[in-house]
């Protein structure tokens, strides 16, 4: 089943003195259960692509269709709700709300979704154990290592059972051991929950784990290879 359909996507940044063509006609689609990496040199448009697919930025042209909805057309508050229901996010660093504990961070989205307490509690516990942090449930982010914070962020992204998860360089700030650990967890959850993961990266070890590798350069897809 197709989860995301991207058609002729373009993005031009016009706000500074000179304009930047960050995306130049991207056509891509993602199937349910994919574990895909977006790679490319710095400035190639990875972040821009993920932001637009995640509804965090508006495209200049083309469309992103998710679940029969052209998200570029949604009004801002509807779009926020759409993200809440359908998309999980993991960012590069400092993902978590510092005044909330790990538990509260994971439950945060379910709270916004209005899930009942018992369900929130169970899901949070399951996910925290899946990311191997059952014993750190009540720690605030400042008491967790960068790798642990990223694992909580992954748990949070999954908490709402989204259609797919977008992760923009989730391992960029991690050492190699934490990187591997995080990737293993993502892979495991991808298999167990059949959640689609799309992540961008510079790291060859991360690329190695991906089952699909999309390379972009100058805002264009230059290769799209499926492995295994």
């Amino acid at each position, binding site marked *: 089943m197709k989860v995301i359909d991207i058609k002729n996507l373009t993005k031009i940044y016009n706000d500074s003195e000179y304009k930047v063509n960050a995306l130049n006609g991207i056509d891509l689609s993602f199937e349910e259960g994919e574990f895909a990496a977006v790679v490319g040199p710095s400035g190639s448009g990875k*972040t821009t692509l993920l*932001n637009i697919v*995640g509804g*965090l*930025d508006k495209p200049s042209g083309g469309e992103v269709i998710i679940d029969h909805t052209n998200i570029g057309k949604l009004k*801002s*508050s509807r779009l*926020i*709700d759409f*993200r*809440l*229901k359908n998309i*999980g*996010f993991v*960012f590069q660093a*400092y*993902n978590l*709300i*510092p*005044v*909330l504990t790990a538990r*509260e961070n994971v*439950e*945060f*989205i379910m*709270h*916004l*979704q209005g899930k009942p307490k018992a369900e929130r509690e169970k899901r949070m516990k399951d996910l925290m154990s899946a990311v191997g942090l059952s014993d750190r449930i009540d720690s605030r982010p400042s008491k967790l290592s960068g790798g642990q914070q990223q694992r909580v962020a992954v748990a*949070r*992204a999954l908490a*709402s059972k989204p259609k797919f998860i977008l992760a923009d360089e989730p391992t960029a700030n991690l050492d190699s051991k934490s990187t591997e650990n995080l990737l293993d967890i993502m892979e495991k959850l991808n298999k167990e929950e059949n959640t689609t993961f799309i992540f961008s990266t510079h790291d060859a070890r991360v690329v190695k784990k991906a089952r699909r590798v999309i390379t972009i350069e100058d805002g264009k897809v230059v290769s799209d290879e499926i492995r295994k």
Partner: protein
Amino acid sequence: MNNLVFAWRNLWRNKRRTTITVTAIVVAVLMSTCMSSMQEGMYSKMIDNVVKFYSGYLQIHHNNYWESKSINDVYKPDETFYAQLDSVRDIVHYVPRVESFSLISTGENTKGGAIIGVDPESEDRLSELSRWIHKGECLKQDDDGILVAVNLAKNLKIDIGDTLILLSQGYHGATAAGLFPVKGILKFPSPDLNNFGAYVDIRKAQDFFSMPGMVTSTAILVNNYSDVVNVKNELVTKLQNSYSIMTWDEMQPEIVQMIEGDRAGAVIMKAVLYIVVGFGILGTIIMMVAERKRESGITVAIGMQKRKLQTVMFYETLYMGFLGVFFGFLLSVPLILILLNNPIPLPGESSEVYEKFGFEPVIYFGAQARVFVNQVITVFAMSLLISLYPIIKIRNLKVANALRA
């Protein structure tokens, strides 16, 4: 997570900054409360001096008297009249008076002045006349003598034991003339009253003006300042338009004006104080919003409606205001209570200036509701205004930009 709890935790992210900001509000509230308390204490004293010690809180006159001030517009209070006054619960005391003008002469010097006929014992309970005896002694019941205000006595160059000749017009054109030995010199805490006139026994005054049993006014003492309007309304109903009933502020509009004017002046000072503190709070809020830009971007990205985020930041601003007011109160209430019971005497030089103008050289404090309520309203209004900043900032937040921050 409850918005209020969320906001509370956000507030204490930077403990030191929040503490400093709240402390600034506390100091402003404290200063402003003390200032208001001092003003209100001064106003009450002023009203007391002129109102309580002279006019009474209310007066009952003949319908034309206030306009004409004529000795012909007088009335004869009878049993039923007094019975009506007695039936009003908040009236503590009332006194009959005969007031008119007269020439006051020593034979050599002559001045014009007010002559006030009072019932000495009864009057003492209202205006505490005996308290202001500077020299000599107070009138007794049916006394033949006269009490003269200090400045008038000075102008006439008289002293205790001298005799004054009073010449005036009595009821319906009768000639009024009489001799009154000076029994005492009065010194009031108000310069106006010291220039004002002379007191005689009411029965002597009624004889002098040929108006036996009649009075120009009945002055009324009520339990509490705030009862005045109620008492007036009750009297209007009971006395059914046969008399004019006036409250102290209707009789003394200058005092009311002066107080209003002074309040307006003080408002400017307090406004400056609060504007300074307001910018302090605004600065804190601006920093709070700026350093949380990326985090705000993340929360909106993962699905928090901007409205909810705005609510949280709105609460944070209000919390700061509330904490400031709360602790400001906590400190100011005991402070004001102490000052209320321990008025501050003015030191040497300034005390002389005060006394020269007839004021007691003491700073009195007040604890009226407005002293406190105004601070709450001000800080609350200020917080509301400042909270517009995060609300607008969040409204204009661009998630993609915030994430790059």
